[in-house]
Every structure is written in C-alpha cells, then in structure tokens.
C-alpha cells in the first residue's frame, strides 16, 4: 500500500497538495518556500494536477486571490516565507473572519534586517493572533501529513478557519527525508472534497463581510474564538482518523520524547526538535534525566495538555527560535504562553528561556548540552539565576 520516496519538506508539501486535489494555487517567489510552487507549476503543466495556477502580484495578492477563490468554494493553497509572510498581513484577519479555510505553507525565514535566508519562526509567529490554525512540522513526513490534516481541520463545518502550515526553512524545506506516500483512495477517505457552507454563488445570494457597528463586535469576535476552540476536539478526531487510515499515529497537541522519570525537559517547536532528540539520547547515556516536549499546534494553544505534560518536571527550558523584543520576561513568544498556561497549575516547573537558532543558525548538540547543564542546575537548586539565556553569548 502506497510508496516510499525521499522528499524535501517542499516536495512533501507539493505531493500532498496534489493528492488533496486543490483547485486554486497562488504563487509569488521568495526563498525558501519557492520550490513548492516550482514543483506544483510543473505538475499543472504536466496535467498531473488540475488547478488554476495564478501568478500573483505579491504575497498580499496571493492571499487575496485565495480569499476570493475560497469564498467562491474552491480548495486553495498558497505559501510564503519571511517578509513575504508579513507583506500579506492585512489579509489574514479578513480570511479567518470570512471563515475561509485557505491553507498557507510558511517555510520560515528570518525577517529583515538584515537580509538573511535562514529559518527563524518570527515570520509565522508574528501572525499568531489572526485567527488561523498554526503549527510546525519537524520532518518531511510530518509536513506531508500535516498538509492533509490541516485541510481536514480547517474545512470542518465546526471550524472553518484558515491554516498556517509551518516548517523550518532549509532544515525541513530543503533536506530530504523518507516520506510514505499513501494511496489516493486513502487520501480521499480522510479528506473528502471541500463543501463550502456559504459560497458566493448567484444561485443562493449571500453577503460576505458587511460593516458592523461596535455593538455587533463582541458577538462576531466570540464566534471566531469559538471556532478556534472548536478546533480542539476536531484536531483530536482528525489525528485519530489519520492514524486509522494511514497507520501513523500522532499525539494531537504535545508530543513527549524520553520524558519518563525526567527531572527537566526541553520545550520546542519545529525542526530543532530533531537535534534535541540526539542530544537527549547522549545525555541519557550519561545518566542525565532530560526529556523533550514538542508542541504540534501553536493555535489553538493546548493549555490543558501543556499543564498536564509540563507540571511533572522540576524545570523546563523553552527553546525560542523567534524574537519578541520587550516581551514579558524578556524571552521569546513561546515562554510567555508557556508561563501563562502554567499559571493555574497546582504544581509547576521552573522555566527559563533559551534564545537559539536566530537568523537560521543551527542549534548545535553542544548548545543543547549547555541548556541541559543550566536546567539541571535549576532543577537541583530550585532557583532560577537568569530567566533568559542567549545561546552563544553565555558563560
């Protein structure tokens, strides 16, 4: 059943988009995500994929065209990286507010300045409050799977929200890994054709996005909030169904690795989890009680699952591959949310932030050993010396 191929993250995305029978694709070049559009345009040219491939006049236009197409009932795909993601910022809230389940690949790239192709998550995380489902994949296989899973979640009539399908530029987008490609019939079973609820169709006229007055604001915002919260059980269902049909079983929200009896853990999203696993194997051989907690969805943020997972550790190190200058506690974006998640917990770990991989620099094994050393000290002493460490600048 199915085949196995070596694919990059971008190749895996394109293959999944094709198998999802997407109707409208919008492109604009920016590294590193661009490759997915090169592959998809060739698929369209070869007749392997029947879709309108629209050369948009910029990222803002990519998203605008997807908005119109999704509102008219099409399954849509687009993508970008870095400043391309922020250039389209205006369009994100109208798309989620219009309840259009557009899917956008973000292969992370550092924002300017300076011009830098390397992966950093600030581009995508900067858009985290726009009403889009959001999460990171660690491997090309997870990229392939997430592409299908995200359409399924976003198009669910209980949710109807767009999705940022994120993975790290280069580390995932450009490094090939083995990907199990399922049969088309499996994909069709998991992801039936998109059934729009209120499409723009002269046979049944509707208006999308009329003006309101302030007294109507709370109800509308509550509806979008409720849709995002409704995604929680839908994600669990989709992950279950995915395991049943494809045989790969994911944890819906928070994946753990070697956390049995661990005193402390690395908390991470995205590609650097790969290096973290190696570091943990090494450290475990030396008797260091360390584990990994990987978050699979940033939106909706799995508060309950995190409380359950993180409460058992003495210390947690949040690896921050993003910047949020002046944020609470002076770390990155994730620390603030992790701390908020644990605020109500009866028992909570001590938390430190580790700013790493900025500008797309790899986080090395030695840096993970350094993080472990600091966390070990925190766990043993029960005290935090410093809330934030900048990897490469510390003693």
């Amino acid at each position, binding site marked *: 059943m199915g085949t196995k191929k070596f694919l990059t993250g971008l190749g895996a995305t394109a293959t999944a988009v094709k198998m999802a029978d997407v109707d409208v694709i*919008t492109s604009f070049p920016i590294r590193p995500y661009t490759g997915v559009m090169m592959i998809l345009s060739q698929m369209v040219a070869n007749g392997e994929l029947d879709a309108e491939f629209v050369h948009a006049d910029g990222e803002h236009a990519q998203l605008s065209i997807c908005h119109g197409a999704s509102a008219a009932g099409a399954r849509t795909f687009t993508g970008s990286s870095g400043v391309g993601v922020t250039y389209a910022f205006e369009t994100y809230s109208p798309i989620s507010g*219009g309840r259009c389940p557009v899917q956008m690949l973000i292969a992370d790239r550092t924002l300017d300045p300076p011009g830098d192709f390397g992966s950093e998550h600030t581009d995508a995380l900067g858009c985290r409050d726009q009403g889009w489902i959001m999460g990171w994949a660690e491997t090309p296989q997870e990229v392939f799977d997430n592409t299908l899973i995200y359409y399924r979640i976003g198009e669910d009539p209980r949710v109807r929200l767009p999705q940022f399908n994120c993975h790290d530029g280069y580390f995932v987008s450009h490094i090939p890994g083995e990907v199990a490609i399922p049969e088309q019939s499996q994909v069709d079973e998991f992801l039936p054709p998109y059934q729009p609820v209120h499409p723009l*169709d002269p046979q049944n006229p509707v208006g999308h996005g009329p003006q309101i007055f302030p007294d109507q604001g709370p109800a509308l915002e509550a509806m979008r909030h409720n849709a995002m919260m409704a995604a929680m059980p839908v994600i669990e269902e989709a992950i279950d169904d995915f395991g049943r049909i494809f045989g790969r079983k994911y944890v819906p929200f928070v994946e753990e690795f070697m956390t049995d009896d661990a005193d402390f853990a690395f908390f991470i999203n995205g590609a650097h989890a790969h290096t973290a696993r190696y570091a943990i194997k090494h450290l475990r051989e030396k008797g260091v009680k360390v584990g990994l907690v990987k978050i699979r969805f940033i939106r909706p943020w799995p508060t309950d699952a995190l409380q359950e997972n993180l409460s058992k550790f003495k210390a947690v190190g949040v690896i921050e591959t993003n910047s949020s200058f002046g944020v609470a506690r002076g770390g990155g974006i994730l620390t603030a949310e992790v701390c908020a998640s644990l605020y109500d917990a009866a028992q909570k770990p001590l938390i430190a932030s580790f700013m790493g991989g900025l500008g797309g620099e790899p986080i090395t094994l030695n840096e993970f050993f350094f993080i472990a050393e600091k966390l070990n000290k925190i766990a043993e002493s029960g005290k935090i010396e410093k809330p934030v460490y900048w990897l490469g600048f510390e003693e």
Partner: protein
Amino acid sequence: MATQKVEKTKLDRIRSLAKAPMDDYYVPGHRTCAGCGPAINYRMVAKAAGKDTIFVGPTGCMYVANTSYLCVPWAVPWIHAQITNGGGIGSGISAAYEARIRKGKYHGTFPNVIVMAGDGGSADIGLQSLSGAMYRNHDLLFIAYDNEAYANTGIQVSPTTPYGARTTFTPPGPVVPEGKKLWPKDLAKLVVGGHPSVKYVATASIGYPIDLMNKVRKALNVEGAAFMHIHAPCPKGWGFPANKTIEIARLAVQTGMWTMWEFENGEYKLNIEPKKLKPVSQYLEVQDRFNHLTTEHKAKIQNFVNQKLATLGIKVPVEAVTA
C-alpha cells in the same frame, strides 16, 4: 486563464431607458447620501449585469454606506474586499469558477464577476491589484466608480481629484492658493496602455445611463478581463445640491472635463463628441470645491482639458471663457 470554454449567457443591447430591465439587484435600504452618484451608478451596473452576478466591494463609500449592521443592499452575492485588493479577490472568484466548473465541482453557468472599486481602491492603493487582475486576464469586469476623492473618510485627495479642487487634505491657503496642485491620473489610459490582454476598456458617466449600461454589457460579454472608469459626482464632496448630480455629470462631459470613449479590438472610439464644448469655468463655478480658484487657475485647467481632448482626437471649438 481559461483552458476550457465555459457556458455564459450573452447580454443583449439595451435600446432605451423604457426597455431597460425592470429588475433591480441593487435595492433600496442603504445609507448613501441624497443624490449619491456612486449609488446611482451601482443601480445601473447591477441592472445591466442581472442576476448571474457576483460583486466584489473594496472598502470605500460603496462599502461603508451600503453595508451597515450586517445588512447589504444587493440581491446578488457580494463580498467585501480590502481597499487594497479588489482585483485580487475578483481574480480568486473567477479562478475558482474556472477550476470548479472544469472539474465538475460546480454545476451552473460562469457568473459575471464585477469588482466595484472607488478611485482610491483602483487608481491609488488598489492599483497593483487592478493591474494584476488585468495582466492575468481573469474573466471579470473591474469598475472604478470615480467620485474624485476618498469621500467616505471625509473627502480627502485621491489621484483622480482634479487640479485645483479643495479637499480636506488639499485645503487652499495663502501658500497653496489652488488647493490640489497635481494633475489627475488617467486610469483608463493606464489600463489600456499597459495591459495588452485586455480586450475592452471604456469610460462612462452616470449622466448617460443607456451608454453606461450597454458598456457594462459589452464588458461582461468579453471573455477575459475588462475595465470601466465611470464618472460619478458626489454632492457632499464636491459641494453642489443633491438634486443636481446628473446635471453635473452631464456638464463634465459637455465641458470636456470627462470624456467618453471605448477601447475595443485595439482601437479607440469616441462615444460622445460634442459639436461645441462649453468652457470648463461653467463646470467649476457650480461646485464649492473650486470656488477659491482664480481666473489663472481656471485657464490652466482649460488648457489641460484642451490638451487631453487633442490626444483623443477631439478638436471642437470651446466657447470663450468669460472672467
């Protein structure tokens, strides 16, 4: 973009006002000002296009004044676009219907997709989006309804505001006696000049409804992208009585301040060529926005109009300007 021909009803020519369709798809119940030119335009465009139509409404007067408290005055589908992306949203709707009809996911005829953008949403912040839609030749009609200012936000200058007009961003004063100092963008020429795939471009005016409605129909019958630039006077923004909108619209054409032409099959065609033009001062003097202008300013405008008309091949005598 079309790779397969899709079924679409051709719209017939409207012979007279009496023979125009009775049905309206832009209906009462909105909050536009008394005598609103863009609202009159909307009614005529919707009437000409008929029920198999989807409107895209970028932010502007025709968004804000039409859609209040979650209500819309359209009996056909409508979607809000940002002021920036009318062309993009329209492109997406058109692309969706291309794909869905071709793939057997939609069973029905290809709709008329009409983007109804103001001058800001077309000539200024929406220009890239308009140009992208025209360049890619999506099957849609982009209309710029031109009331020559950002009127909804309180009459601020736009690229199509005439030289010498007072707006709330171009107030005249001792240092800037003329108010607006720049000459307006010629949007329709910009579309014709830079977009070789576009088969049909026309200017029109709400003062000439039969001409306007038939141009809408021609534009919709074209396969691919079409563009119309429609002059729609604004009583509040320009400073004239609400019952004079049509009169002002006609006066614009009679003085050469607005010209009426079509670009079809690679050629320009003048639709209304007055035998004799009235001086522009007759148009300027009935609007408050020009009431600070001196004789010299008016002469500059007359000169500009004469030159613009010459490029269109209009060489008709202008009555002498009386100071």
